[in-house]
């Protein structure tokens, strides 16, 4: 996990009261893009894509994430770990997008778009199967409580250290470990019918 940017470090060390610090940062919007957003561009795009795996949805998610980041820019600059917080915002938006899509599908009672595609080609069939699998995993992720889902995604998919996850979720490392442990168990339980290795892992745990 990358450390805080030099700008943030300077603010944390030099600034006076939190109020005055916030005021000075709010007036200094010009550097936010260069200092915070630009170094995180690739990471933000990839983190969103890995979860939603849909170009339209990923675009919407990114837009929402940027809006949230802009809205919370003062808080992000004062945060001990801005990249972790920005990653958390992106993943949060991605989870929200998955939930919204599932809700929309339920309301309109439409099948998943790819289910409608009829193809007898072996490659296409494999691709379709893989997509269904991904959707199942996505469904399992969104069934997790929000913080637990975020902790699991940050740890198991993005390999973030516990400390960074704790800073991003604004909780202790112990809580993060508990979230991850419980989330891991729930996912294993839900996903074991889909994966033989998970079933073996579950058996070993028992």
């Amino acid at each position: 996990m990358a450390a805080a940017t030099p700008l943030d470090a300077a603010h944390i060390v030099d600034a006076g009261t939190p109020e005055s610090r916030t005021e000075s940062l709010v007036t200094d919007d010009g550097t936010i893009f260069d200092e915070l957003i630009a170094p995180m561009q690739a990471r933000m795009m990839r983190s969103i894509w890995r979860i939603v795996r849909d170009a339209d949805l990923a675009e919407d998610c990114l837009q929402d994430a940027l809006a949230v980041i802009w809205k919370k820019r003062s808080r992000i600059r004062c945060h001990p770990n801005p990249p972790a917080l920005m990653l958390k915002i992106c993943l949060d938006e991605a989870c929200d997008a998955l939930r919204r899509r599932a809700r929309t599908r339920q309301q309109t009672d439409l099948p998943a778009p790819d289910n409608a595609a009829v193809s007898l080609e072996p490659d296409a069939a494999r691709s379709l199967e893989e997509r269904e699998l991904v959707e199942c995993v996505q469904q399992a992720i969104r069934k997790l409580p929000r913080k637990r889902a975020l902790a699991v995604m940050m740890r198991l998919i993005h390999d973030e250290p516990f400390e960074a996850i704790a800073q991003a979720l604004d909780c202790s490392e112990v809580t993060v470990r508990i979230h991850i442990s419980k989330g891991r168990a729930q996912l294993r339980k839900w996903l074991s019918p889909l994966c033989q290795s998970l079933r073996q892992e579950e058996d070993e745990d028992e």
Partner: protein
Amino acid sequence: MNEKNIPGSGLKGFLSQMFKDDLPPEAEARMQRHFCRLESVLVRAEAQVKTHRCQWAHIMLRKEVMAFASAVMLIAGGVMHLGGNQSVLAHSIGRVKTVLTVSAGLRRATSMDCTVLKPGDGDAQSSFHLRWTARVATRVDMEAGNRGVRTLWIPDASVSTALYAGIASRPAASAAITRDVLWQPALEYVTPVLLARHIEERYGLIETERRSGDGVDEFLLIGQENQQVIEIAVDVGTYLPLTLKKYRLDLVRAGEERRCVEEVRFRWNQPIPRELLIPKYPAGKKPAHQ
């Protein structure tokens, strides 16, 4: 759905495989657009903020400069006041103000009766009696040496259109009259407006002393023109000239006794009989230009 088998990997491996880091270039390009848009918006906003700050700095600087200038002027005013001496500028302003007041009084005059005296020996001595009424005419009676009285009527204050010259009857061309040396002393005071113009433009007058007592309350304006010192006594109440005297500058400089070369006495806004200002043509004679 077929069961997925990922040998040697647990949940972490399974999730990593499900959520592969395989962002397609098209999706990346679409998302990249949002960053570009945000950056351009921020750059624009920053430029606007900078412009705004520049404007504010400009305004604040102007305010500071104005405040500084005001403070300097206040201090300078205080110093000048305490110093007691009036500045050249104040003098100059006062002089202009006095001259303009006199000039304005002359332009408002409704009638003028003035006598011009040119001292001299024998034929050189001459006197003129000018009577002017607004919007009517000026009558000039000249008496020079033993040549008797000659009268000149000038309608509505226009020297260039002088009608009649001579002993009440002899026609003469206006150009000839204006060139005639004998009439020159009078032509300078044909109308109050002409006198006002001289006061404003030619004499370069400066207010000097004030004289009061014995029914006289006047101040003096002193100027200079054509090697002559000009001294005008102005009534304090009406700001109209009472007398105008001319002295030779060379004699004044040499410290000799001042000798008046021309003296003009004015009376203002007194009624003048209208018939005096209308020429009396002899029978059978008409004005030259009619």
